[in-house]
């Protein structure tokens, strides 16, 4: 079965200015919906907050022990390393370090065939999910990210960014990281069109992401070639780059441009790959009926 991704009238050449405004307003509404939807589960947010904080404390002490043995390990001071721990806990859900937070639902829709309904909507599938995910990320950042970072900062007095400009640079890197995460997990979810049961791919992606994002240990601490490889892979854009921007290791000006360029490069590649997979899937795959 074939699905047109856009209704015939909305071909790009014919699109008027007001139509574009309408689309933007639509995606803003979808994003707001994503925010509100996750904001409904307050107990779950509190529970997650608690768990993130406990893990933050446990990891902080192990990192302190590690940095006590080897000061300046990976170029971080122990204060930087502590900041890294709590940034990791804060970005856990925002940058999808342990699962993107939306892929299970998307895979389920593909498996049950509900995706056919989504494909009939006069909006692009990838952009729709991207907008919804952006709303989710915004909520997770405010609801689950900020508080552990604050608790950690009060308990351990770790490194803070240089003034408002430093915070702004960090937040921009986090935003880019969350979009790279979306592009990655979207690609993973697309595999369900062919495999139906996406669990194997999701687990493999989860595993690789956990290791290469630097969630378990900063990528700077990885030895030699493994470290270089890890720094070049897209997962570095999720946690390592935002954390290094936070710690001011990219400096200002061109250094920051390099960091953002790395994230944007992977974002473009992964979004294009997701788009290619999506169009291949909608062209060739028979959607599950039910």
């Amino acid at each position, binding site marked *: 079965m074939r699905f047109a991704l856009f209704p015939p009238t909305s071909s790009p050449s014919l699109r008027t200015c007001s139509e574009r405004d309408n689309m933007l307003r639509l995606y803003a509404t979808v994003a707001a919906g994503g925010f509100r939807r996750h904001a409904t*589960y307050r*107990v779950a947010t509190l529970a997650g907050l608690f768990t993130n904080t406990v893990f933050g404390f446990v990891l902080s002490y192990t990192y302190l022990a590690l940095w006590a*043995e080897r000061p300046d390990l990976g170029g971080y001071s122990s204060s930087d390393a502590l900041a890294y721990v709590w940034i990791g806990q804060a970005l856990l859900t925002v940058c999808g370090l342990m699962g993107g937070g939306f892929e299970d639902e998307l895979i389920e829709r593909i498996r049950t065939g509900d995706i056919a309904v989504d494909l009939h909507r006069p909006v692009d599938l990838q952009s729709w999910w991207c907008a919804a995910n952006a709303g989710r990320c915004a909520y997770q950042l405010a609801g689950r990210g900020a508080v552990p970072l604050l608790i950690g900062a009060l308990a351990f007095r770790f490194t803070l960014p240089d003034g408002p400009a430093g915070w702004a640079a960090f937040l921009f890197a986090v935003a880019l990281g969350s979009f790279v995460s979306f592009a990655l997990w979207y690609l993973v979810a697309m595999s369900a069109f062919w495999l139906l049961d996406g669990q194997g791919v999701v*687990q493999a992606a989860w595993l690789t992401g956990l290791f290469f994002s630097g969630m378990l240990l900063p990528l700077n601490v990885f030895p030699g070639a493994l470290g270089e490889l890890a720094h070049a892979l897209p997962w570095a854009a999720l946690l390592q780059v935002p954390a290094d921007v936070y710690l001011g290791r990219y400096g200002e000006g061109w250094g920051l441009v390099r960091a953002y360029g790395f994230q944007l490069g992977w974002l473009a590649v992964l979004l294009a790959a997701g788009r290619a997979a999506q169009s291949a899937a909608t062209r060739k795959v028979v959607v599950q009926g039910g």
Partner: protein
Amino acid sequence: MAERLRTPVGEPYGTGGRGPSPYGTGSGGPAPYGTDIDGPFPYGADPGGPSPYRTAVEGLRTYRMVAAMWIRSTMAYRASFALTLFTSFCVTFFDFVVILLMFGQVRGLGGFSFAEVAFLYGSTGTAFGAADLTMGSLQRMGRRIRDGSLDVFLLRPVPLLAQVAADKFALRRLGRVLQGLMVLVWSLVLLRDEVAWSWEKVLMVPGMVVCGAVIFMAVMVLGASALFWLQDASEVTNAFTYGGNTLLQYPPAVFAQDLVKGVVYVVPLAFVNWLPALYVLGRPAPAGVPSWAAFAPPFVALVCCAVAGLAWRTGVRAYRSTGS
């Protein structure tokens, strides 16, 4: 259209009709369990009910049957099972790679050598893995309470805890146990000359794994009991189970003493491996705990089970169905 192609074996709740129908909704065949039960309250909810011993036997039987059913269903897709088992093994292995990477940079952590940290890692990893294998499904109960499907479980004349704990029994979690055991054996090989072994130390190693698993299970049941009131709070349990497992992989000297006291006196996770392992390694117990505490894990495990059992009963009594 394509739905016909999926075998219903993997979906015990499916409407497929064919394949083993575990809850006896299909046609023919004997009812899977509960045929030889007398009285309507076999799980001792009423004071005049059967003895706790019978309840336990009945629970174990139920657990075995439900788990066996899920294993059969998993084995319908052998390749998929092998893959997920392998992934589960790898997830925990990466966990250990972190420690390997750390020891690539340093010679000791908190005064402990690699072999000693591996001993801590292996003992808690195996205990937690065993608990996760048997009780890990309890986390899903929040969803069952929310969508009302727990009611079906309550209607069956078998213990609720056994049904919920064996629900969607995932044999792939065996990967974590295997990985933990491998590290434990490796560390024991490394430590064979460093430790002054005596018979009580040799017995203490399997003993602490068993007691540790029971303590972790009790924590999981306790966490699940809270779900009767707070359905979305399942992640809090993670802080104590996964978080506790991470904590116990490292020597207690690394952590703030208040934190160590917390896992001795409040949530007794220190009895999973810290106290017995320190005794085996010939090191003093942390946070001013007396040295005989190394022999306490069996009693602590029993107390934990009693508390968890009490919390579970209170939770079941307080349960209100969503009604949907």
